[in-house]
């Protein structure tokens, strides 16, 4: 293998990792707000919760399209295998996102009869978050592949482990949502978010611990990666940093003053989780059956896309930051365009 066809798939794996991470964090707090709708029934408060994300949600969700489109462009074989093998949870996720997405606009047009779209928003978010966790779990377990094609059954993904990953992502997104609210609101709503954030954080810590133990128990390949000398020493900072980030998050929730701290700490928790996943699975794209090199598109295709990506991604990040900056500050009742 020459240096170009060795490096290109690695570069593309890194770009996709960035896209997926940004999606999980950005739409994660958006879906988290939907999950919080289950615990806040008052219309006025729901309006504010929704308005903290309304100008951003569409851009946030686009990272999911880049994840899918980028996977198709850079790793078409993996794209085909993953979409076929995790057919049911992926379609369920997409349909849930239909409800969640249209609710952003329909809810305001339907007022004062918006109850259905409140349900669409809250259940759409919950089901989408759960399905994404199941997709992750299904991938970690591995997919049966024969000659570039998925060769397993429709319900291969359906295991207690994958379902628990779904629960884990739901509480994770709830933590992102509550800490985002602490950052973007004040007064009664912020107090409410602080209380819920504590519960969410405890659940996240518990879920992280369980998944971190369950994964190596289910997947021997991953146990070997983590628990052999000297790797165990090399990777030990990851769990230690998780404990530190969780402590900072708790500290920020407890102590009024730095409203951004809990959210930043929650994001750090997600990033550390992602690092853990990378350590567990490099160099696999479809764990245990397809490496990044095996799944890669033709070098000519990856290169053509890379030129555009290197040019456009900084611009995208630039105007995304600009829009967040434009709508900075606390959101209060009565703001919005509707």
């Amino acid at each position: 293998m020459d240096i170009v066809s060795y490096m290109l798939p690695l570069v593309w794996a890194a770009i996709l990792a960035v896209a997926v991470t940004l999606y999980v964090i950005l739409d994660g707090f958006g879906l988290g707000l939907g999950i919080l709708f289950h615990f806040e029934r008052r219309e006025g408060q729901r309006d504010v919760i929704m308005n903290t994300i309304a100008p951003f949600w569409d851009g946030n969700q686009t990272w999911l399209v880049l994840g899918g489109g980028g996977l198709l462009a850079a790793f078409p074989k993996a794209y085909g295998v993953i979409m076929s093998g995790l057919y049911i949870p992926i379609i369920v996720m997409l349909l849930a996102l239909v409800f969640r997405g249209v609710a952003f606009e329909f809810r305001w047009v339907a007022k004062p009869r918006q109850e259905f779209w409140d349900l669409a928003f809250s259940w759409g978010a919950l089901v989408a978050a759960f399905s994404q966790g199941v997709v992750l779990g299904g991938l970690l377990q591995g997919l049966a592949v024969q000659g570039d094609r998925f060769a397993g059954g429709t319900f291969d993904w359906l295991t207690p482990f994958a379902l628990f990953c779904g629960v884990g992502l739901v509480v994770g997104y709830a933590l992102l949502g509550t800490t985002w609210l602490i950052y973007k609101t004040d007064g009664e709503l912020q107090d409410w978010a602080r209380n819920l954030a504590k519960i969410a954080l405890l659940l996240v810590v518990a879920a992280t611990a369980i998944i971190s133990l369950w994964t190596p128990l289910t997947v021997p390949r991953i146990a070997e990666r983590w628990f052999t000398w000297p790797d165990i020493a090399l990777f030990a900072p990851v769990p230690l940093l998780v404990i530190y980030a969780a402590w900072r998050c708790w500290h920020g929730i407890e102590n009024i003053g730095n409203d951004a701290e809990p959210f930043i700490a929650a994001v750090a928790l997600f990033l550390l989780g992602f690092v853990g996943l990378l350590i567990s699975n490099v160099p696999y794209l479809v764990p245990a059956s397809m490496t990044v090199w095996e799944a890669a598109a033709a070098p000519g295709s990856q290169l053509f896309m890379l030129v555009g990506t290197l040019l456009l991604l900084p611009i995208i990040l630039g105007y995304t930051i600009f829009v967040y900056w434009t709508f900075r500050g606390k959101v209060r009742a009565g703001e919005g365009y509707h």
Partner: protein
Amino acid sequence: MDMDAVLLARIQFAFTITFHIIFPSFSIGLAAFIATLLVRWRMTGKEHFRKLARFWTKIFAVSFAMGVVSGIVLSYQFGTNWAGFSTVAGNIVGPLMGYEVLMAFFLEATFLGIMLFGWERVSPNLHVASAILVALGTSMSAFWILAANSWMQTPDGFEMRNGIAYPVSWFHIIFNPSFPYRFAHMFTAAYLTTSVVVLAVGARYLVTNRFIEESKTMIRMGLGMVAVLAPLQLFIGDQHGLNTAEYQPVKLAAMEAHWDGSKPAELVLFAWPDAKAETNHLEIGIPHLGSLIITHNPDGLFKGLKDFKPDERPALLPIFFAFRVMVGIGLLLIAIGLTGAYLWWRGMLFNATWYLKPLTYAWPLGFVAIISGWWVTETGRQPYLVYGILKTVDAASPVSFGAVLTTLILFVIIYTSVFSIGILYINRLIEKGPQGKAIAVDGNPSLGAHPLTAAQGATRSALGSEE
């Protein structure tokens, strides 16, 4: 995967993409319309332009949301339904999709935030610029998607190795033989569709004596576009047809229901094409006119369906009838445009109730034409998914019949209900009209049954006063 599951996967894809195309067809033109209104407002300072822009922006937001959620489904269905397609054509189609996301989707989705929520938050110039960027994003999105689709119709700039397509020239991949025609045809269709909606809404207000000044602006702008674009579309469509004759002759033969390539073709106005008997029943046609249109020579010859083996022919009925629906609507729009232009010239337009009243029902015309046109071109590509390279049967994902059936039922239930409600909501916004106060507390009959709580009232008045 067995044949039945392939058929279900095709029905599912046809269903989801047919629903999806409604919304971008509308958003592409509407974004440009809103940007134009805002530019005119900045140039003239006339407040009714801004009021109109604000009104249409609300409708745009609802339509755009439906376009986004139905579009995301598609970007994953290439894998869930057509894993073989991503393996064989992923090297080519993948980067085109990737560029669409990077150049267009992010741009429109991000600046939509400023367009919707920036009315009082950012400077007017930045707000207008955001609307222009959203319009630019929708157009670039169409560019890349149509490049990908056109490549599937008339593939170029690639080579096959071990059954997989590899790029050779990206220029030829993007600007493949049918792309310029398809892009011009679809882009014009999108602008035409939106113009008809704007015209119909303007007519609806004027015949009921509401929003007089706004309605006249809408009628002028909508009609102006229809009068120019509808005749232009006839020319572009003809050119596109000639391109199809060259590169996909069997599709053209199916559109024309032309069986025998050794004789000059009639223009078949109506018929019931019979694939088994290889003939047309109940045919009404004009001799030699078909040849004149396709070859620009009354005795010109072009290939008929019998020149192709039966298993290389696409399904005839949907192509034949959808094509006639599209052309029929196109001719109707030319009539609407020219009649309106004449009335306008004579200064009778705003009093011509006989003309304006039927127009209030004209809003769906463009959508029906666009869906019909896509059915013609997509069905006409069959039995291939990538023309001449990959058959649809060979592209299907290894997914079970039951799984595809279940999700198909879910798609049908959810799409028809959610998107029908969305269209009803757009109608509700139109009914409310371009008001200074967006949320009318008074005069809304639905409020009677639900007394406002204090919180609701406070929110609503706060939202209203912000307008």
